[in-house]
């Protein structure tokens, strides 16, 4: 077996040093009834070539986004990732190292995390960011829990524009801890209704911008209303590229900003692994979940970085920890940071502008199709449109024509009563030809 270096002679020699007659002797503590006599009923080992063939066959049964026109967004976005990003994250020193618990021999990971935290803080317009969480949805759930700890209150108001998966993940964690979740009705401009739901029990208001329907909102007024009643404002962003063009959460008064960082540096990968961004005000840093990297000096006075404020975490605080998270999204965070470094502010702004431009192009093309009503007035790179047919059926019909038309709201949230609404997205990877093909096919399907 190519991954196992020990030879039969090694094994015999090692057993002799141990003083054990055979390998079974080392498993003596396993109850006899639970010892398997031989291999389980699964195939035997296979060579690299065979494994590659088997998996390539499975991969070939999927329609990759790059193979044709694709317009899915709604929390995961297809962007071009520069080749050098993938090269860096495949370097052994980053790929095959553990959490940097021995800082003297992990400065590479630690300095990159420090750069990541600085970038995330700048993008979100908040003072401190952590070293990543699993993804945007779990970051959102953690934000709700943190707000409840900070305010010692027990109600969370979720905007109807929040991605339904995020709302569900937040509910799972919050209701378990006794935090009541009030999820407002889904609507393209659901943020209008948020202020009215804030009361003296409210720990936080969770608002997404651009929201799941693509709507961009200035949440400053919601921030004021939340703060006036002692609640925190959590601003969620699922499309991190939008930070390049839109006002940051911090600028609009957010206390906690969370985001899905997949868009920058990370592949779609059918939903994971992704990278959760989490930033907040400095005053609340000790209530933050997840790892933090901080600056310090070594014994000779040279600058270095360490994991810090660890007493918040499970390995020290155990049942009183701010979160149970241990493993995070380190390598995805590195991909984010390398891609962001390549972009720089100039590149990020340009990328955001190109995305917005392509989405306008998409909006204009689809709005001209009979039977389509564009619903989202102010969008970044995705928008909702009402069709005069059920959206799921249209998506299936277009998939048969090799066009991945977007995400029907009915798939995300059947209870929303928006079966005729389709979410579409365009990025820099969306070409004019793709848009033309989509508009033409949609015209034909809706005319059928």
């Amino acid at each position, binding site marked *: 077996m190519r991954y196992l270096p020990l030879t039969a002679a090694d094994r015999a020699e090692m057993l002799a040093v141990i003083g054990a007659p055979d390998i079974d002797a080392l498993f003596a503590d396993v109850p006899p009834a639970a010892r398997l006599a031989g291999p389980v009923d699964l195939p035997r080992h296979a060579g690299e070539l065979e494994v590659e063939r088997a998996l390539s066959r499975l991969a070939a049964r999927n329609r990759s986004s790059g193979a044709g026109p694709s317009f899915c967004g709604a929390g995961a976005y297809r962007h071009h990732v520069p080749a050098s990003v993938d090269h860096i994250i495949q370097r052994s020193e980053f790929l095959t190292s553990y959490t940097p618990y021995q800082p003297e021999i992990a400065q590479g990971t630690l300095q990159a995390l420090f750069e990541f935290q600085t970038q995330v803080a700048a993008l979100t317009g908040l003072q401190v960011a952590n070293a990543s969480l699993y993804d945007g949805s779990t970051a959102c759930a953690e934000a709700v829990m943190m707000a409840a700890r900070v305010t010692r209150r027990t109600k969370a108001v979720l905007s109807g524009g929040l991605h339904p998966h995020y709302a569900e993940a937040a509910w799972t964690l919050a209701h378990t801890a006794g935090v009541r979740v009030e999820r407002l009705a889904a609507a393209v401009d659901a943020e209008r209704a948020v202020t009215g739901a804030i009361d003296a029990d409210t720990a936080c208001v969770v608002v997404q911008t651009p929201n799941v329907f693509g709507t961009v909102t200035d949440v400053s007024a919601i921030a004021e209303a939340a703060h006036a009643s002692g609640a925190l404002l959590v601003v969620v962003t699922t499309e991190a590229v939008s930070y390049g063009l839109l006002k940051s959460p911090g600028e609009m008064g957010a206390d906690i900003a969370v985001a899905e960082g997949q868009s920058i540096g990370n592949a779609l990968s059918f939903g994971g692994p992704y990278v959760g961004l989490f930033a907040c005000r400095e005053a609340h840093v*000790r209530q933050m979940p997840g790892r933090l990297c901080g600056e310090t000096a070594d014994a000779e006075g040279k600058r270095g970085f360490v994991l*810090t404020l*660890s*007493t918040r975490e499970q390995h*020290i*605080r155990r049942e*009183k920890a701010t979160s149970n998270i241990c493993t995070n999204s380190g390598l995805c965070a590195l991909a984010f940071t390398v891609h962001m470094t390549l972009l720089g502010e100039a590149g990020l702004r340009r990328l955001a502008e190109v995305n917005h431009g392509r989405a306008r192009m998409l909006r204009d093309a689809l709005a001209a199709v009979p039977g389509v009503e564009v619903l989202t007035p102010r969008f970044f790179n995705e928008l909702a449109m009402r069709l005069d047919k059920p959206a799921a059926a249209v998506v299936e019909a277009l998939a048969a024509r090799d066009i991945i038309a977007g995400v029907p709201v009915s798939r995300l949230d059947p209870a929303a009563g928006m079966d005729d609404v389709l979410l579409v997205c365009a990025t820099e990877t969306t070409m004019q030809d793709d848009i033309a093909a989509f508009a033409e096919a949609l015209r034909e399907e809706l005319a059928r």
Partner: protein
Amino acid sequence: MRFTKEHEWIEADGDVATVGITAYAAEQLGDVVFVELPEKGKTVRAGDAFAVVESVKAASDVYAPVSGQVVEVNGALPDAPETINAMPEQDGWFAKVKLSNPSELDGLMDRAAYEQFLATL
């Protein structure tokens, strides 16, 4: 000065007592990096966790040795937590508590008894 088995010290002056952690506790924790003090005005019962003290690798609750109301906290401590290591039983005090039941002090150890207790650990 009186002591608890949780390594707090308390020294009463009239009906107000000053509370901190013992030199032994500070030594066990190592370099203190953070302290969270109770809010002034808070009412505590003997045995309540009323403060938190942290080193790099450990976090401990500090328990109120007596019942009463917190009338003053050591405002200099959060910015200079190293004082707890340097002078745990003087400048490293945590809070002053107005005793609601001064007889609780009688149940605590004196220094000799506390030192005897430490010898058993």
